[in-house]
């Protein structure tokens, strides 16, 4: 089985979620989780390329030490809007709202999410937030940094912070509603026989993600409201002139925004945990440990926020506690990496594109995670915080990790989503280009950061010695850009010209592969009853005639 099996039979007559109804309203008013997933897919792709465009301009500006491409104010708006768009309008909804939306009901054997109309509402909230964000960017923009620290954002900037805040607030509620839907669906909608210990680990990861979305997002929402009211209505809660504490703002902000990183990375971990067993033809190594480490990350993730604030003016002792807890949260991630690696052992490994992305994820996430150990070490943190070291670190996690996982998942489930096969050769090439481009872009930034180049600098003519590394990084960014454009092109191409996919082209385990590609509107023609454990690849691969000889 070198290539996915292609079923040549005609299947025009079969009704799927894609051809059941036609017309714009059948999409805009749909309550089908699969169609909503596609709506999300289109919208987040749109925002990804907007954010990517800003990133490209940032990198071009940094090609030379002098600030020559754009004005200082424009540059500040570019990195602010790059951050806001990428974090709130791409990364947070990326895997949960597209792949999660599409797969969570199918993986647990349900016809839909528990609240289909709320699911649609969540997309509309996202779109309303997105339109406000676009309006804000087109009519002046915002320059507070995506972290919008007070008192700069509340009393000093003369850009449109309130509007951007409203946009993020609304998008935040969309994220809460998605999380709510997942938690209720996973608790209440599982098919007969789908016990907690039989759930795919993708579901466990999304369960943990949802908990963070539910408990974290409201805190940043109220923080935005407080800052916006301080700015618009002259309330004074963080205003140092009244005796308010700007550091309190940072506590509230990072209470969400640190766990938010796990909203981005946990689903990617879930994706990789599906891909690796499938292309190794093995049950995942240490199922319980991988499942519980997701929950552990969600729980510990809430206890480490102040490690963003070691030089912000917090006490030495609280810094000590938060440094310790940061190492505690690193542990479950390490456990996951070891378990994925161990899953490969004695497998029967194929190198299809999803697996290449999973390998890429492993490499980049490992580097990103290990660089987190530097940042959690108090003594080093003082030197490298707010420098390019941090920029490199979180891009390794959020782009190297989360986006690699997202692309891997897109390739893995594309046959299920579209009913078509993507061109395998191009996909492998794209995986390679992304991996190389990514490392070229962000690895030099670790060095830059340790050298001391602060982040959010538009002009570094004071320290021209940083140029060589910046040029490398910009060169890498163009490669990376090509790597990201390619999949969009061939995915679109395959929708029309791709070979039709069979129901289970990878011969993968999991309920979503037991229904048609693309699935019917209610996912399953017959209500599934689960009698097998997750990742039962030994049963799937069992040949019709016994071949005990090879196994022994």
């Amino acid at each position: 089985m070198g290539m996915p099996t292609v079923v040549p039979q005609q299947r025009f007559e079969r009704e799927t979620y894609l051809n059941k109804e036609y017309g714009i309203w059948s999409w805009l008013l749909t309550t089908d989780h699969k169609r909503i997933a596609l709506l999300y897919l289109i919208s987040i792709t749109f925002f990804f390329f907007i954010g990517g465009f800003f990133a490209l301009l940032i990198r071009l500006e940094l090609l030379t030490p002098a600030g020559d491409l754009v004005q200082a104010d424009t540059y500040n708006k570019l990195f602010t809007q790059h951050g806001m768009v990428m974090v709130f309008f791409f990364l947070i909804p990326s895997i949960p709202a597209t792949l999660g939306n599409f797969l969570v009901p199918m993986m647990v054997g349900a016809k839909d999410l528990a609240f289909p109309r709320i699911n649609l509402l969540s997309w509309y909230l996202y779109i309303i937030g997105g339109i406000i964000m676009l309006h804000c960017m087109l009519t002046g923009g915002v320059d507070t940094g995506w972290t919008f620290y007070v008192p700069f954002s509340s009393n000093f900037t003369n850009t449109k912070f309130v509007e951007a805040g409203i946009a993020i607030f609304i998008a935040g509620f969309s994220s809460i509603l998605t999380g709510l839907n997942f938690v209720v669906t996973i608790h209440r909608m599982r098919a007969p026989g789908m016990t907690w210990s039989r759930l795919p680990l993708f579901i466990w990861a999304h369960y943990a993600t949802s908990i963070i979305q539910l408990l974290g997002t409201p805190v940043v929402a109220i923080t935005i409201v407080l800052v916006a009211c301080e700015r618009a209505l002259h309330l004074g809660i963080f205003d140092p002139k009244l005796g308010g504490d700007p550091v309190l703002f940072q506590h509230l902000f990072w209470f969400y925004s640190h766990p938010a990183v796990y909203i981005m990375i946990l689903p990617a971990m879930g994706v990789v945990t599906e891909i690796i067993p499938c292309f190794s033809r093995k049950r995942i190594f240490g199922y319980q440990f991988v499942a519980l480490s997701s929950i552990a990350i969600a729980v510990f993730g809430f206890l480490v926020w102040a490690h963003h604030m070691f030089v912000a003016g917090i006490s030495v002792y609280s810094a000590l506690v938060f440094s310790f807890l940061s190492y505690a949260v690193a542990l479950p991630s390490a456990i996951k990496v070891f378990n994925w690696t161990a899953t490969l052992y004695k497998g029967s490994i194929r190198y299809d594109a999803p697996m290449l992305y999973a390998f890429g994820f492993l490499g980049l996430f490992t580097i990103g995670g290990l660089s987190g150990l530097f940042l959690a070490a108090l003594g080093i943190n003082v030197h490298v915080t707010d420098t390019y070291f941090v920029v490199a670190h979180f891009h390794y996690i959020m782009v190297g990790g989360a986006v690699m996982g997202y692309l891997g998942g897109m390739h893995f489930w594309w046959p299920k989503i579209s009913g078509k096969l993507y061109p395998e050769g191009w996909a492998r090439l794209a995986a390679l280009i992304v991996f190389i481009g990514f490392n070229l872009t962000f690895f030099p930034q670790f060095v830059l950061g340790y050298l001391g180049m602060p982040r959010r600098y538009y002009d570094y003519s004071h320290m021209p010695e940083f140029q060589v590394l910046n040029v490398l990084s910009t060169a890498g960014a163009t490669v990376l850009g090509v790597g990201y454009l390619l999949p969009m092109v061939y995915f679109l191409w395959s929708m029309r010209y791709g070979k039709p996919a069979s129901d289970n082209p990878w011969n993968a385990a999991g309920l979503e592969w037991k229904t048609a590609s693309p699935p019917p509107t209610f996912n399953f023609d017959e209500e599934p009853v689960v009698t097998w454990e997750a990742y039962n690849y030994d049963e799937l691969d069992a040949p019709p005639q016994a071949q005990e000889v090879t196994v022994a």
Partner: protein
Amino acid sequence: MPESTLMGEHRQEQLHPELLHHFADPEQQRNSASLGMWVFLGTEIMFFGGMFCAYLIYRHWYFGDFGAASKSIDATLGATNTAVLICSSLTVVLAVWAAQTARRALLISMLVVTMLFGLAFLGIKGKEYYDKFEEHHVPGASFSFNNVPIPSHPGEYANPRHAQIFFSLYFMMTGIHALHMIIGLGIFSCLLYMACKGHFTPEYHTPVEIGGLYWHFVDIIWIYLFPLLYLIDRHP
């Protein structure tokens, strides 16, 4: 689709007209709705939690100033509002009971009474805000809180800057609470409409239950707001 399941689904639909297509049975639907509301209330706690956290820190820092500022608010109005909300919780419970026991007239009247209590709450709140506006206690350029003694420390006067933080928190916390109240009134209007149309039966009254949960939650938030904002540092 096999014929047998098709028949089965049709039968279910006839038996339970309110059953949505993607649920297996009414119990699953009810359990999902109620879990959904509980989870949502969890997020609401975190939403208010941010403000409670800010309140606790500043109350600790600016202890006397907060006491003085709190004392300037009319506690009688606050106490009346507390009573109004507690009564409204009772009528919500009665409404749920009426829905469970198919007492439609009682259900409708209890929903109406609850909404009247809600409106009364907002009216009293409005009066309170108006007083604060008259006294120049609204944070901003015209804010003034000079020479207000600190209750527990004779001879000391509250720092107007710190009092302004108190009033900022006061308006944010009560304002967002009032906003929840207004949303609650919207929910109850829908419930009232559905009740009048006769949508609720002893088998199906989940909207009344989860709407009631929401209302109780808004009341409980007030039970915390009232002592923190109105009663600190009051001595007989």
